[in-house]
Each structure stands twice: as structure tokens, then as C-alpha cells.
């Protein structure tokens, strides 16, 4: 196997919410706790979990949009954890992000051409004509007409806006794109178009994706490997098919069983999760899932399970895997 393009080692990130003496006092929300991850060139790694589990935080931390409190991020062999923004800037060309809500991630007051040209200008892509040519090429790549360059984002539909977001992300020929729920704001029919477009682009441009989603169906369609997160921790990681068909972690199983199965014959016994997920401000000790786990035992309450290899290309963090 080739060397990973991105390695995350024991990343932790805590947010401080509220003021020390403010209403409710100061809260420390542990969004990431000792997360480790490797991403290989050319693959699509899915990142899945309930909302609030820290997957978006992980995505943003990997891109150094947030600075981790502890741990290491190694991108293309370089440790970027403590790099200054200025030193990081050349590397930014190689790692990009696509956001969930294209209407929020595109400044409504700037024209599409201006928006897409922004990275080209910042990274001194070349003269005006060269940029213009590149813009048209990009529009073509994402399936939009070059005439649309002079329009404003609000003149487009949601799907078209996401195409613009993609065009901007690929403008500098990055190697890695982290797509943070890129399709969850879109209609289902459009979702497939975007997922297909992303797959096409991956093929053409040799891209690596981290594809964040809460929708298992999308992950199944888009990702070869999947990492399942719960309360700031990766509980299971492995090939998508393996994980989906034979989940090893009880949380993964519950997640999968919650997905409506189109084929009634294939319906399995459903594991229904009890209650709300605990607050990330006050995560339970031991296995973070033990409060809701059907198989929880005494040990789960005190001892935190580490991510351990479990079968081929798979790791699970559970004392009593399925």
C-alpha cells in the first residue's frame, strides 16, 4: 500500500462555550478525543455519525481550520499541526474543502467568477487571461456554462451552487478534498448528480476525498472506506461494505438498522437506540457509548476501549464487539 496522504494522530479538540461567569457558566465541549486516522491517496473515506458527534470538527481540524489541542496532523509527509497560516498557505492549494451549505459558503455579494478566481489569485496562478481560461475550464468540468461566471450565487439552484463550490475547491488542482456533508442540503435527485460529479472529478483529477455525511446511503454510494464517529471518538473504521454488512460496533449496528431498508425481506432485527446522546460537555467515562449500548457491562463504564484491529482492514473500539 502507498503512503497515506494524510495522517491524524491522537487529535483532541475542546471548545469553550459560554463565558466563565456567563449564563450556564463556562462549558468545555470535547469535540474530538484522541482521534487517529489515515487517508490514502485516491480513496474516498466516508465519515459518518449522528449530528454533533464531531465529524465536521474533525474535517475542519484536519484542514487546520481549527487548531487541535493535542495530537498531530501530517499531510503529504509534512507535520502541519503547528505550522503558521503563512507557512501553510502553499499547502492549502493541495487540500480543499467543500461545504454543506453552498449558499452559506459562497459570499452572496461576490460574483461566481470572482469567487472561483479567488484561490487562483491568492496563489498567483497567473495573468488575468490565464485565470479567465482556467475559470471557463473549471465551469466546464463541473457542468456549468461559462456565461454563468458573471452571476451571483443566489441566482443558482442548490445543486448548481454546490457545483460552484466544487469548482472553487478544485481550482488549484488539490490532492485532497474534504467534503463536509456536500449533499445533505440538496434534494435527493440532485444528491446523486453531485455524488456522481464528485466521482467523475476524482477519476479525472486524481483526487482523494474525505466524505462527511450522516446519511449512510450516501456513504455507501460514495465511499470505499468508512469511519464511524460517536461523541468525538472513532468507534469503527473499515471498508464500507464490510462495515455496513457486518458492523462490529454496537453503535454502528444501531446506526445501520435505523436506515429504512427498501427490501422488506432483508429486514433484520432492529436495534433501537434508547434516549438522547449524552452531552459532549460531559461525556460518560469509559466507553462513551455505554449509556446507550445494549451490550454494556461493568467494564465499559470505567475502561475506555481503544481502536483495535478487527478482521481485515478494520478497526473497532469496543470491549465486546459483535
Amino acid at each position, binding site marked *: 500500500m502507498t503512503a497515506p496522504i494524510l495522517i491524524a494522530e491522537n487529535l483532541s479538540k475542546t471548545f469553550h462555550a459560554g463565558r466563565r461567569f456567563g449564563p450556564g457558566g463556562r462549558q468545555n465541549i470535547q469535540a474530538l478525543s484522541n482521534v487517529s486516522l489515515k487517508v490514502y491517496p485516491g480513496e474516498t473515506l466516508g465519515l459518518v455519525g449522528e449530528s454533533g458527534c464531531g465529524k465536521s470538527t474533525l474535517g475542519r481540524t484536519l484542514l487546520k481550520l481549527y487548531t487541535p489541542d493535542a495530537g498531530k496532523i501530517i499531510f503529504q509527509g509534512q507535520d502541519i499541526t503547528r505550522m503558521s497560516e503563512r507557512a501553510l*498557505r502553499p499547502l492549502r492549494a493541495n487540500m480543499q*474543502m467543500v*461545504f454543506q*451549505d453552498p449558499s*452559506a*459558503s459562497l459570499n452572496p455579494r461576490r460574483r461566481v467568477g470572482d469567487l472561483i478566481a*479567488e484561490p487562483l489569485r*491568492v496563489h498567483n496562478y497567473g495573468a488575468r487571461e490565464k485565470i479567465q481560461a482556467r475559470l471557463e475550464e473549471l465551469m466546464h468540468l463541473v457542468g456549468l456554462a461559462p456565461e454563468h461566471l458573471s452571476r451571483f450565487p443566489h441566482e443558482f439552484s442548490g445543486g448548481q451552487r454546490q457545483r460552484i463550490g466544487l469548482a*472553487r475547491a478544485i481550482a488549484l488542482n488539490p490532492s485532497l478534498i474534504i467534503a463536509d456533508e456536500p449533499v445533505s442540503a440538496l434534494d435527493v435527485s440532485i444528491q446523486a448528480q453531485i455524488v456522481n460529479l464528485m466521482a467523475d472529478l476524482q477519476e479525472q483529477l486524481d483526487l482523494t476525498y474525505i466524505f462527511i455525511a450522516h446519511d449512510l446511503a450516501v456513504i455507501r454510494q460514495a465511499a470505499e472506506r468508512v469511519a464511524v464517529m460517536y461523541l468525538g471518538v472513532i468507534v469503527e473504521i473499515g471498508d464500507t461494505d464490510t462495515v455496513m454488512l457486518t458492523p462490529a460496533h454496537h453503535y454502528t449496528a444501531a446506526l445501520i438498522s435505523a436506515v429504512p431498508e427498501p427490501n422488506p425481506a432483508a429486514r433484520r432485527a432492529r436495534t433501537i437506540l434508547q434516549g438522547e446522546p449524552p452531552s459532549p460537555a460531559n461525556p460518560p467515562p469509559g466507553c462513551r457509548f455505554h449509556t446507550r449500548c445494549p451490550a454494556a457491562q461493568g467494564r465499559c463504564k470505567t475502561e475506555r476501549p481503544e481502536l483495535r484491529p478487527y478482521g481485515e482492514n478494520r478497526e473497532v473500539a469496543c470491549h465486546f464487539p459483535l
Partner: protein
Amino acid sequence: MLAFAILIVIIAACLAAPWYAQNISQSDPFASNLDGSITLAGQPVDIMQSADTGFGVTPIGPTWTQKYFLGADDQGRDVAARILFGGRNSLLIAAGATLICLTLAGLIGIVAGFSGGFVDSILARILDILWAFPVYLLAISLSAVLISRGLKLGPVTIDSDSLLIPIAIIGIVYVPYVARPIRGQVLSLARSDFVLAAVCLGVPRARILWKDILPNVITTLIVFAPLMMALNMLTEAALSFLSIGVQPPAASWGTIILDGEGLLYTRPAVAIAPGLAIMLTVVALNFLGDGVREAFDPRAKIRVQK
């Protein structure tokens, strides 16, 4: 856009003040004219009319002719011409103060909201202090100092009779009213996805500020502009009324109301006319403000799209 038209008319009229004084009223609205007289219906009439008993002198009332159209003030000056001249100062001060207020508020709001941390805390504290300082008290205190001694700040020297003093004072006192929402907006902009996207693209902070944050802030400032100008207009009038705004012989609508206060019982037109002028202008500005807000406010736009 009627409001806009009215404003244009008012501004034009005030700009035409010298022309009016020279060609219509034919008097110097800044020179006392205590022993002059004019001809009305063929009769010479004193501008300052002494009572038969020898007590009290009453200026001539509205003649509704080109000279002394609205009568004279206690210096025998043509009130109509003074209102036009005064309007220039009132508008100038209101506009100047608006400019200062919005610039300062924009700067403070952006710096506080975008830099966060220590700088933000300091600036937020300063805004808190200004906010809790009763507006008129602050304005009056500052005026008391500046009007009587002028301002010397390093190389900058402002004469105590300069219009810049009321402009600066009024500009400063309302800064927190604008800076607070701007700071809030910048804070939310700084956390917005498109700024995050820009960071992700490797856009330098300065460029993000310039390209992504500033245009949004400026839009907000433009929405604020007519409303602040209306507020400043009223504040200027109040300060001048308390004789700590524009200093004689210069006039503003506020000082003319003050002049008229002493003649309220005999010549109410002197005080009423500039008050109406203020009201008309402020109404126009407020309506203009509503218009601008509807044109710029994203929420309003969404509603239109629906």
C-alpha cells in the same frame, strides 16, 4: 422615493441660501440690523419695533413678501434667509457626524469582531462605557470642554468655533449604537462558512477582511446611514438649543429655535419654522432609511423573492 426627492429639494434650497440672501431677501443674515427699516405697502416700517411705552422691542413679524418673509429675529436679521443658511450647517453637521460615526463604528466593530480576544474585550468595554454614559450628558460635557478651548491633539488643531467640534461630538456619542451591531455582524461573518472557505483556500486574513467582510459591513453601514443622519440632526438641534453646538453668528436650525425661544410669545414663527424644517428633513431621512433597508436587507430580499 418621494423622501429622496424632498431631501434633494431641501438640500438644494439650503445650497441656494447665498443666492436667496443676495437676490430675494437682500440682507446679510449674519449682520445685526437693529435700526434698519423696510418699505411695506408703501410705508416705511422699522424692523425692530419699539413699544409705545418704551419698554420692549419686538422684531418685525412675517411679511410674506420677499424681504423678511418669516420676519426678523432679535438682531433684526431675516429669519427665512437664516433658516436656509442654518440648514446648510444642520445638514453638514448631521452628515459629517454620520460619516464619523459610521467610520469609527465600522472600524471598531470590524477590529473588535475580527480580531477577537484581548483587543475585542478592550473595545467591547469601551463601547459598554460609552453606552452607559447618558448621551446628552456625554455630548454636553464634551461640548463644554471643546467649545470653550478648542482641540489640540498633536498636529491636529481644531478651532473652538469650528463646525468640526459638534460634528466630532455627535459623531462619537452614537458610536456604540452602530459599533455593537457591526461587531456582532463581523463576529458572525468571521464564523461564517464563506470566511472559513476563504481561510481554507489560503486567502490571507487581510484579504478576507477586505473582500469578504468589509462589503457586508458597508452594506449594513449604508442601511444605518440615513437613520443615523436623522438621529444626528435631532441631536445637533438639541445641542445648539442648549447653546453648545453651532456658535453665533453661524446658524443651524437648532440655534434658530434657540433665538426664537426668546421671541416665542411675540414672534412664534422664528422658533416654529426651523422646527418644521427639522421635522420635514428627519421624516424624509427616516423614510429614506426604510427604503434603503428594504433594498439592502437580505431578509427583506428573501421576502420579495417569495
